[in-house]
């Protein structure tokens, strides 16, 4: 596929865009500019099915795929109907590896399916990567369908903060053997068609649903990651296009943003920027999205290979219907060569035990203690403490050293069940405690990025959080989801390296 073909396809495929006749309602995919029934002068509206739920009307197991899909092995492709047959689209079932024996395809006809933004294929190692939302997972499986309801904001806060968040953890997991992984029991594994960009889209989608805001009011998106699929080409732009961030104009959007890199704190570093922007009149936008997303990289059999996970967390900052105000911010940075990846290298290198002390602990503990000092708060004034979690021991040890108790730390230690999400690590832990938080609770979050730096934030939870709890797919729900599926080491490596 060429670049212009790719661009044309993006406009339709990212949102499953169709055209609907204003007069008779007949809907066409792919879109066309007049209705066959009403004639050439019919008026057509653009509709999309990005947030819809469909029904599988027929399917097959592709066992001898085209060369472009060989990397997926066998998979189900089918025909999906929306709005009781008003429009039908082709789609591939994702997050599902069919068994070797023949399947009775009768069992699949009529099943509900949910669109997923996934990678299709690439033009070799040098060419473009193609994405689409014409991929579906089964309703009632791991991934629930959520309605996207846009509501009018009710309250305006003087102080900006978080207005919504979303976490996406892949369906697949690998278990660690005992005594390896420093307290990490199991980890999230990307399916073969997932990558950092698809995680980011899913997390962003959930954040919009949780916040209940119209995506056109999001004027900036920061995407922090150290595993974006392109060295040069922003994943943020893909997220923007898929989620329609900003006012639409001729296929583009009036919004900005960047991909950023600072090892594991690439996303959290932008929390303060996001909060500052929405409070700055010249910015002229209502909301800023910050996403931490990583398919955490590790070489085969490296110690990191037993702690890395995959997933993303997205936070929306604004001043309307804020669920947690951002009250304090303390950054701390030094040039510490504890962990690095040279350009063109596939996997990071690290300094072994030196990544703990003086790298991680020095920065995290300094930021934690200084934030308490600046805020005038004591550890007892904080309900939850969240630290970047390369494993389960480091954040616990750092928090204890800063004066916190086990019960304050425990709820944020989701690393045990999901692994280290790199840029998504502390944001996911923050989401996990926000899932439990009540109005008035204070949360301190300290991120860490190798290279090295930390920043601490103190958030205060507002009563708005109660209105939005039921729109969230909590981190705990994802960790305990009965449909999660374990894979063996070789599958984990294969899928991870495809991403």
């Amino acid at each position, binding site marked *: 596929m060429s670049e212009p073909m790719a661009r044309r396809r993006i406009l339709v495929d990212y949102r499953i865009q169709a055209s609907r006749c204003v007069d008779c309602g007949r809907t066409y*995919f*792919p879109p066309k500019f007049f209705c066959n029934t009403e004639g050439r002068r019919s008026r057509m509206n653009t509709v999309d099915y990005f947030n819809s739920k469909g029904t599988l009307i027929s*399917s097959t197991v592709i066992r*001898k795929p085209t060369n472009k899909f060989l990397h997926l092995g066998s998979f189900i492709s089918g025909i999906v109907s929306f709005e009781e047959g008003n429009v039908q*689209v082709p789609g591939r079932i994702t997050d599902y590896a069919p068994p070797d024996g023949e399947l009775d395809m009768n069992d699949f006809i009529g099943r509900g399916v949910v669109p997923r933004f996934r990678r299709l294929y690439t033009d070799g190692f040098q060419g473009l990567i193609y994405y689409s939302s014409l991929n579906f997972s089964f309703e009632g499986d791991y991934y629930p369908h959520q309605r996207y309801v846009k509501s009018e904001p009710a309250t305006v806060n003087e102080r900006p903060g978080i207005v919504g968040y979303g976490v996406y953890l892949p369906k697949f997991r690998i278990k660690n053997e005992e005594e390896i992984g420093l307290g990490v029991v199991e980890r999230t594994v990307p399916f073969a068609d997932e990558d950092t960009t698809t995680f980011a889209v899913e997390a962003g989608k959930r954040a919009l649903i949780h916040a209940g805001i119209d995506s056109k009011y999001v004027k900036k998106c920061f995407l922090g990651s150290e595993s974006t699929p392109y060295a040069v080409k922003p994943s943020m732009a893909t997220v923007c296009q898929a989620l329609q961030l900003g006012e639409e104009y001729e296929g583009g959007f009036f919004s900005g943003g960047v991909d950023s890199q600072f090892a594991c704190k690439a996303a959290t570093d932008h929390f303060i920027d996001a909060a500052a922007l929405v409070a700055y009149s010249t910015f002229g936008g209502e909301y800023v999205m910050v996403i931490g997303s990583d398919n955490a990289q590790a070489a085969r059999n490296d110690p990191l290979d037993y702690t890395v996970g995959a997933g993303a967390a997205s936070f929306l900052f604004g001043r309307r219907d804020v669920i947690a105000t951002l009250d304090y911010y303390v950054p701390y940075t030094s040039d510490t060569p504890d962990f690095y990846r040279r350009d063109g290298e596939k996997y990071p290198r690290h300094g072994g035990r030196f990544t703990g002390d003086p790298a991680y602990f020095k920065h995290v503990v300094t930021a934690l203690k200084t934030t308490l000092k600046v805020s005038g708060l004591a550890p007892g004034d904080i309900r939850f403490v969240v630290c970047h979690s390369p494993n389960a021991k480091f954040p616990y040890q750092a928090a204890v050293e800063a004066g916190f108790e086990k019960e304050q730390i425990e709820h944020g230690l989701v690393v045990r069940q999901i692994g280290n999400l790199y840029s998504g690590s502390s944001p996911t832990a923050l989401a996990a405690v926000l899932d439990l938080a009540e109005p008035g609770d204070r949360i301190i979050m300290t991120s860490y990025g190798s290279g090295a730096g930390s920043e601490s934030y103190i958030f205060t939870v507002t009563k708005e959080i109660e209105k939005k709890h039921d729109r969230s797919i909590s981190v705990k729900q994802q960790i305990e989801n009965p449909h999660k599926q374990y894979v063996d080491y070789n599958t984990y490596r294969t899928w991870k390296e495809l991403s």
Partner: protein
Amino acid sequence: MKNTVCSKAKPYAAIIGAGRTNFREQWYKDPEKLLMEAGIGAVESVDSGLRRRDIQACFFGSFLYQATNKLGLVPGYMARELGINIPMNTTEAACASGGSAFYNACIAIKSGMYDVVLVGGFEKMTDGSSKIIDELMFAADPHEFDAGFTFSGLYAAMMARYIHDHGHNDRRCIEALAQISCKNHHHAVNNEYAQFRREITVQDVLKSPLIADPVRLLHCSPISDGAAGVILANPEIAKEYTDTPIYVVAGQQATDDVSLCTRESLTGIKSTRLALDKALKGLSMEDFQIAEVHDCFTIEEAMFLEDSGFYERGKAWESVYESYESYKGSKHIPYVKEGAELIVNPGGGLKADGHPVGATGVRQIYECFKQLRMEAGKHQVEVDGDLNLALCHNIGGTGGIATVHVLARGI
């Protein structure tokens, strides 16, 4: 017996000669050489002789030559091969390229523009066998490719829905869709040009490797190389070339969405129905003794039997099963309906004769020409009385285009 309906209308054209190559992998032959072999075969088969310079135009059909064979401007190649500099054009309509080229040639003859034309269909698929699964998807909507579909996958989705809607969990439905393969293999045993000249059993089909559930390897037509050619003439002068021209008494083409997903139904082909409705005016399928049906996958043959009205919607599999089970060991296995018998794909069809995509539509004409002239050799259909009427049905993609031609021995 002359058909009274056909006799009222002036035929579109007359077929006066036909030739073909073997259908199978042909490692040492370029595509244009295959086409040349079939075309010259057609020229040389004309009873009273035909000179190259008598041919006034050529109509070629092929699908993937640009991608698979790195070939373009087929007319230029064929001007070189044939050594003549007459009007030539190439039609691409996926698997219906041959049928569409033939349709265009009939229009050209009927218009009075030409008196004698050559129609040729060809495909050399094995030149690009490593990419052929991908390239066949040029005949589908790109979204279907991006959904991971293959061509066998698209037909499997049709078959799955057919079994779901009409199979009623009856094992005989699955077996009937395998019997279609067995029947076509049986027909090919005596066809000297066919790719697969061996019998297979229902169990062979149902134990063959899964390609796209429920489609298995032996439900599928093969990858083939080959070409076929026919000579078409103005009916008024046809007898100058042969005493037994075969007349094209009706020819129709119809189209539908390229994408299977946007069709009205997954268990029938609208373009087939539209083309048949126009082509069969005054006729019904019971009037035919033989039919060449586009059996790229067995489900397509079953759907044709319903689209054509020969069997009731949703009931074809039951009648296929009963017809096959009542087979008594004759050379051909007819489909039976209230005393009427229809032999479908007497030379093995796409499944067993082979399916070099662009050649198929012309090969179907070749087969019916030979059958109606009683020149089909060991696989000649034997019926009580004369063979008079034959039908050729060729579709492209998953039904984005269909051609139907009615051939008659006498008018």
